[in-house]
């Protein structure tokens, strides 16, 4: 199966190492990712959609119209992009007036969209290939006690996302376990990371992530896995700030799901730019014996 890859804004322009791990993992699995020229911002379902639904539909439809891949359709490494692209499809397919209006706008730039491009989250494709994932594990992640953060837009609204259970998801748990790691239950597992409210209230956003990190620390996890770049930034970029502000001692490595797969597939940390992480995983690697120092 081949997919058109939709990179979005945050991963390629701020966190390209996450993209590197994802591309390497898909190559290992023999799943082809095709690059397409001319995508814009998806646009952000927590930003642009909130202020202008029509613009959200129009830009989203334009992006979807660029994929000519009728089999696999589009794959994205970002939960926000997936929610937008699936959501745009959902709206224009249920509302023929919206579809007409969108196409009137797209006509001005010589494009049209029929609402038929398929969209998948990269974790969805990985889960479909779980057996292949298992087969590719060469260096199991023994001793990794992973706090899984599914994130809101990976799951909800379930009518639009139409995928894992919105409150009792299992897909990422199964993927993590397939790598030899342990999935640690924690009280706040299903809570929002708080990233979207940063645009309105930074302190509130910090409070939400502080609550999650506390719960993760209390549960005895030694790392976190995420599948969305907004969640990734929220978890990783704020630990130092919280430590300064509240005298906490957070030092929890945050991994993208693709990074955990890459490591379990025997791909070296330097090949996937693990050095760009702000919270370094060295102590975890040493304590688990995953990579011996020196």
């Amino acid at each position, binding site marked *: 199966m081949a997919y058109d890859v939709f990179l979005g*804004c945050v991963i390629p322009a701020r966190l390209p190492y996450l993209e590197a791990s994802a591309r390497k993992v898909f190559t290992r699995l023999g799943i082809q990712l095709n690059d397409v020229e001319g995508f814009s911002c998806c646009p952000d379902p927590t930003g642009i959609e909130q202020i*202008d639904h029509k613009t959200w539909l129009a830009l989203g439809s334009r992006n979807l119209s660029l994929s000519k891949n009728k089999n696999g359709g589009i794959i994205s490494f970002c939960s926000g992009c997936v929610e937008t692209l699936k959501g745009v499809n959902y709206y224009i397919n249920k509302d023929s007036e919206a579809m007409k209006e969108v196409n009137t706008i797209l006509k001005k730039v010589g494009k049209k969209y029929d609402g038929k491009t398929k969209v998948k989250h990269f974790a969805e494709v990985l889960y479909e290939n779980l057996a292949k994932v298992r087969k590719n594990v060469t260096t199991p992640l023994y001793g990794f006690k992973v706090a899984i953060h599914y994130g809101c837009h990976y799951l*909800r*609204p379930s009518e639009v996302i139409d995928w894992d259970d919105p409150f009792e998801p299992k897909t990422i748990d199964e993927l993590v376990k397939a790598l030899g790691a342990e999935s640690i239950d924690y009280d706040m597992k299903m809570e929002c990371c708080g990233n979207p409210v940063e645009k309105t209230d930074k302190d509130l956003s910090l409070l*939400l992530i502080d609550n999650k990190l506390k719960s993760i620390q209390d549960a005895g996890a030694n790392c976190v896995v995420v599948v969305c770049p907004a969640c990734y930034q929220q978890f990783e970029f704020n630990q130092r700030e919280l430590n300064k502000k509240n005298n906490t001692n957070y030092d929890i490595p945050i991994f993208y799901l693709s990074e955990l797969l890459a490591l379990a597939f025997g791909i070296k940390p330097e090949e996937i730019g693990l050095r760009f992480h702000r919270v370094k995983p060295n102590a975890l690697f040493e304590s688990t014996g995953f990579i011996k120092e020196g």
Partner: protein
Amino acid sequence: MSVINFDFRNEVISHNASLSYCYQCATCSGACPVALATAGKYNPRKIIELSILGLQEKLIEGADVSIWLCSTCQTCVELCPQEVELTEIFTLIKNRAFEVGKIPEGFQLQGQAIIDNGVAIPYSKAIESRRENLGLPMVKTAPVDEIKTILKETNFENNILKVGK
């Protein structure tokens, strides 16, 4: 004193009829992570109540507007026993606020970035070389003119200029 705006109320209901199903049970507020973290300062049930009553001013222009604190986590939408589409209704209200320039700066900055670049985050030289070092391909994003044409057509560019004026 609060002024009822019937046109606003009717607009919300005609756009999303599920608003009128709400019987104020507060399942939404009880499950809302932001309501919990703000000790009820943000209260989705209250926003729905204000919408049913047509109190547009309180939702869009008042000093205590809280609708922008919604994290869009969609928990309320999943749990509502009356299947009220809260997030869609909040989106409509926020869209109306945008038309009169009443949005938080963070949203304006993102909007302006997309007008200027077609994407929310432009590619810096440093990132381009980091991409190259990681063996990643060059990204050819959307032509800015094409995106601008669409944003003019939807009046987005105009509305962004109204913010803070």
